[in-house]
């Protein structure tokens, strides 16, 4: 597992596909984002900002100084270089925001490449929910940095609701402060190809990171999700849950979950799981959990991975109670995703995502049971 972080693009040559971190990637679709070239492209922003939170533009230098992590690959290094600074969302220390911050980004075409950089900072002891949603079409290389300071709490939801021809590569860099709590939910439903890499680092003991993901790949869609949890602080916790459903010819998903427990990270508690549900014979799902433990003193560490077909017995059971087949399928798939969806605290976002998953199944206009 590679832990190289750098702002220097030269540290990341153009991928050939032979590299471990690129071997599953939809490289053909991502190709325009390997070019070291500036771009005037940008996405349209619509925001909902609760009182007290601040959204402002900062320079590349300031963004580099404040970001949760340096880039992890060529695309994230290029995004940092060419984004022309960053947009910083500040949640002031001690402030509490039950209403979600909403950042809606949308694009109108695959050219040119859009380089983007967003920083989210949650001040000490603050509490907030941030929803970042992507719509329309774009060739988008987006870095998102999330820093949760000491004792703070953030729920961050990133929804990829792109049109079916969008291409999205991203680095979600997260940093969890001492005794801070971070929950991220990455939901990828739209786009031709997505490659989303999340890193989790800790700033002190007692950090708690809950890393969740949900994806639904249809025919021709290729979604890759990677998470790298870097435990180098003692007594921190991480829990990684990614669930995917796939249907149709050429639907493809990749999940690679790396957890590294460094010698300094005594008392670490970590678990990661990926489950994939194949709804027909067309899709393929790859699932690679990696757990590397370099200390003798862990509180708990485990991983699991499973890919299976739709369970016809579940369908039979529901239908034998009169529930029509389509509704029974919908119940089973939503049930499969329940432990990701139920973890989303904001009811509006949760129910919106449930509707989006139903729409993926093609029964979205029916009354929800």
């Amino acid at each position: 597992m590679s832990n190289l972080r750098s702002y220097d693009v030269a540290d990341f040559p153009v991928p050939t596909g032979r590299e471990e971190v690129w071997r599953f990637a939809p490289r053909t679709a991502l190709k325009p984002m390997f070019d070291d070239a500036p771009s005037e492209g940008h996405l349209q922003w619509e925001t909902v900002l609760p009182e007290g939170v601040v959204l402002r533009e900062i320079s590349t230098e300031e963004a580099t100084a404040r970001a949760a992590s340096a880039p992890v690959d060529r695309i994230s290094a290029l995004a940092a270089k060419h984004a022309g600074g960053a947009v910083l969302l500040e949640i002031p220390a001690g402030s509490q925001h039950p209403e979600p911050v909403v950042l809606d980004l949308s694009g109108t075409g695959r050219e040119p490449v859009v380089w983007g950089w967003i920083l989210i900072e949650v001040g000490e002891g603050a509490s907030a929910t941030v929803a970042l949603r992507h719509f329309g079409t774009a060739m988008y290389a987006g870095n998102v940095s999330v820093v949760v300071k000491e004792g703070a709490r953030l729920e961050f939801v990133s929804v990829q609701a792109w049109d079916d021809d969008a291409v999205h590569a991203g680095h979600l860099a997260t940093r969890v402060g001492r005794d801070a709590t971070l929950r991220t939910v990455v939901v990828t439903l739209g786009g031709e190809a997505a490659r989303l890499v999340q890193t989790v680092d800790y700033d002190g003991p007692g950090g708690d990171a809950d890393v969740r993901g949900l994806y639904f790949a249809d025919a021709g869609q290729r979604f890759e999700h990677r998470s790298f949890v870097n435990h180098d602080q003692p007594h921190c916790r991480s829990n990684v849950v990614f669930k995917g459903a796939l249907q149709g010819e050429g639907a493809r998903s990749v999940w690679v979950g790396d957890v590294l427990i460094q010698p300094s990270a005594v008392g670490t508690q970590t678990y990661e799981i990926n489950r994939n549900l194949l709804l027909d014979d067309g899709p393929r799902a790859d699932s690679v959990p990696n757990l590397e433990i370099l200390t003798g003193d862990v509180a708990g560490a485990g991983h699991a991975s499973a890919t299976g077909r739709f369970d016809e017995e579940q369908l039979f059971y529901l239908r034998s109670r009169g529930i029509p087949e389509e509704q029974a399928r919908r119940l089973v798939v939503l049930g499969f995703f329940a432990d990701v969806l139920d973890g989303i605290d904001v009811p509006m976002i949760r129910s919106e995502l449930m509707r989006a998953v139903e729409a993926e199944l093609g029964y979205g206009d029916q009354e929800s049971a």
Partner: protein
Amino acid sequence: MTELIIRDLHVEVESDGAPKEILRGVDLTVHGGQTHAIMGPNGSGKSTLAYALAGHPAYTITGGSVVMDGQDLLDMSVDERARAGLFLAMQYPVEVPGVSVSNFLRSAVTAVRGEAPALRTWLKEMRGAMADLHVDPSFAERSVNEGFSGGERKRHEILQLELLNPKFAVLDETDSGLDVDALKVVSEGVNRVRAGGEIGVVLITHTTRLLKQIPVEFVHVMWQGRIVAEGGPELAEQIEADGYEQFTGAGVAG
């Protein structure tokens, strides 16, 4: 008067890549208001009959007919059969992770009744039915059958029976895995539904345990995919006293 009429039913399953005939001409008529027991040793075809009636895709009907209330049951999909009034209480109820019992029950009741019950009366109805079966209210928020004990699963099946109020119910080995107290609670549930006087009930069992709690009028003995003996409750007593050998020939244990 409603009727469930099974005539010369032949059913195959796939076994080691080849079709294997399990039911070889079953005849059975159940009228609404009646309670029948189908008894027989393990492997005689009792559960196959139950699953074939419900329409499980693993069972292929190769001959015969099943008519419920004048309608050709075999022509209907699994869910159509349930909506037409057939209920199967399963021996091994299936886990459906992430689907709560309350969501499941409401979906089923909505489908079978043809309209969603009003929320307030529904909650009262569901909680009442759960209380009758000594089911903890927290049950409603658990995933269907997930992590349920054997007894909880069976109580959950009978809970559905009570809420769905079918015309005909087939109870497949409902007594298996139940301790004495749970058997009593479950039997009371079945008897409450029977007390309406309209439902036709088929109890599938290989022991007489359940029949001591739920009185039956007719007993049918199944062996090698056919009904080989029929009679009243005295037939069950005969089986209890002398086993199945009298019907099956030597070498078969009850």
